[in-house]
């Protein structure tokens, strides 16, 4: 049985200009120990998806419908205190900007210790020991001293590592990391990603890594979910997604990137047009206004096609796109 199964999730926000559907009928599942990357551009619904799983959607937002099974139970049906127990203890989350989730007036050690006391029922002394141990694990130098530092005394990379320490201190089964390295320099990002990989191998926790950086996904995740306009448009192993993308949006994204593994002066192929406006979504395929392969049928709601080997694509023409893209190249 899957560890996490999201079915038909729909999350909306009431805004001045009407209701926007930030996540529109999303379904996917995740096995224990699996690493899944969720990629998509700004506004595609990545963060709202993770906040929905954590049940942290507040007004003006609302989870309209769907089910989120975690370890067999529908999280959307849990009472608030049951959900609080799941959060932190069974599912932990790391955000892009650690400063927003670290309390500036408590030391790093106090914050990790509090999580440990709350969830694992340790006493003060034990909790502090655990905090030091966790900081050591995420390679904070002289953790027995730095445990008493306040967040502002840590650099950006250290704060993000402290967040990882806190998230992992209760041995969660699932870690959701929302753009954990986006605010970091590349050399520090490399350290944090390496650390996440290592801790994943060690603890066997499943990881959902949310990012707009395809390179980060290729480097960390076995499987990839591509989001566009609030829904999944393609799903597959990293190999399937990067070597044989079928959804024209995924193909376009890969062709538009300047990459170190391509000839330096190869001209980029931009995706024409603009990202979708959630207030005015097309009736059928969300990518249709920008798609070179659009046909009449694309204005009808697009089903997901199973291409075999776990590779899924939401595109009317996904069985032909590989050949068409090859011919265009």
């Amino acid at each position, binding site marked *: 049985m899957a560890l996490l199964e999201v079915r038909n999730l729909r999350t909306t926000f009431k805004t001045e200009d009407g209701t926007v559907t930030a996540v529109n009928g999303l379904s996917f599942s995740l096995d224990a120990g699996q690493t899944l990357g969720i990629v998509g551009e700004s506004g595609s619904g990545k963060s709202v998806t993770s906040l929905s799983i954590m049940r942290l959607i507040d007004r003006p937002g609302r989870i309209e419908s769907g089910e989120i099974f975690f370890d067999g139970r529908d999280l959307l049906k849990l009472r608030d205190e049951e959900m609080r127990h799941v959060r932190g203890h069974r599912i932990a989350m790391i955000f892009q900007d650690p400063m927003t989730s670290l309390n500036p007036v408590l030391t790093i050690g106090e914050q990790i210790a509090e999580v440990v006391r709350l969830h694992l029922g340790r006493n003060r002394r034990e909790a502090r020991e655990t905090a030091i141990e966790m900081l050591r694990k995420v390679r904070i130098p002289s953790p027995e001293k730095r445990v008493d530092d306040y967040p502002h005394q840590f650099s950006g990379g250290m704060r993000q590592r402290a967040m990882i320490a806190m998230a992992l201190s209760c041995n969660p089964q699932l870690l959701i990391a929302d753009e954990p390295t986006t605010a970091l320099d*590349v*050399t*520090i*990002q*490399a350290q944090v990603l390496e650390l996440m990989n290592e801790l994943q191998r060690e603890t066997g926790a499943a990881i959902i890594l949310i990012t707009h950086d395809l*390179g980060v996904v290729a*480097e960390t995740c076995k499987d990839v979910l591509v989001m566009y306009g609030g829904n999944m448009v393609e799903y597959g192993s990293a*190999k399937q997604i990067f070597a044989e993308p079928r959804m024209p949006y995924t193909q376009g994204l890969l062709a538009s990137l300047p990459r170190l*593994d391509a000839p330096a002066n190869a001209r980029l192929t931009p995706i024409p047009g603009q990202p979708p406006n959630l207030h005015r979504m097309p009736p059928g395929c969300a990518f249709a206004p920008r798609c070179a392969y659009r046909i009449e049928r694309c204005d009808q709601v697009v089903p997901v096609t199973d291409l075999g080997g776990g590779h899924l694509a939401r595109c009317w023409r996904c069985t032909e796109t590989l050949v068409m893209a090859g011919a265009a190249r």
Partner: protein
Amino acid sequence: MSEELLLEVADLKKYFPVNAGVLGRHVADVKAVDGVSFTVRKGETLGLVGESGSGKTTIGRLVLKLLPATAGTIRFEGRDISDISARQTRTLRRRMQIIFQDPYGSLNPRMTIGEIVSEPLAIHGIAKGKARMERTVELLRMVGLQSSHLNRYPNEFSGGQRQRVGIARALAVEPQFIVCDEPVSALDVSIQAQVLNLLEDLRERLGLTYLFISHDLSVVRHISTRVAVLYLGKIFEVADRAALYEHPLHPYTQALLAAIPVPNPEMQGAQKRVLLSGDVPTAMAPPSGCRFHPRCPFAFDRCSVEEPAMRDVGGGHMVACHAVENGTIR
């Protein structure tokens, strides 16, 4: 590309004073740019890469005289512009312009697109009345916008479109030289390519020269003819694009390149990985000698006491590193 030098920067420094206490006593300096020399040839794109706080934006602003330098000389088109007057600086703005990172913050929200783009034409008295209007429309077309956009406001545009407006404005005075400070960093990946292609087309069509600032080494490789690598206010390595990316010599450049995630799962692991330990030190108290030594896997005794000088190792490939000088790294 010609051999003619458009810009020559020598030993440029910018220290920002740090004051503390009730009396606001001067206690230290942030050495944002600490003795930087480089040249830009006419028609080329010099990429300037470095991590956050390494001094990229400060260098761009110094070169454009938007910020006074603490020391050093800047020559533009052969003329020393280090100490020119405010009036001369204004004339200089017709020759050199800047495009900013933030397409949201850098446009005045109360001005229409037409006003924003035509303002430099008015300031410099370049065109009036109908001619100004025509020139404005021409500029919008050049960056892929339309005359129907003239009377709209920035908030009605997407990030990529706003960045085009910023580019049109910079082009209004027909500059020779443009500093592009992270022009695509705030844009969605699917939009970045549109703007990068536009910048390349304009360079070719108008014979522009760019100083292209970015923390993204993949973007810099794509657009630059030569690349300079900056760390804590110092340039560590400058080389032609191919040399820098295929044969980097400085340990920091090597680590930086190894740290870039490549969107190709087949490529992971093999040529990886020079993982750097430690954090970037503060520019207030840079480490002694080579300021990279606390993180450098090749560091030896000399590195913490003596600052390495920039040396040409052949073909204009410049490196500042004792290990390269010794032949340990080749």
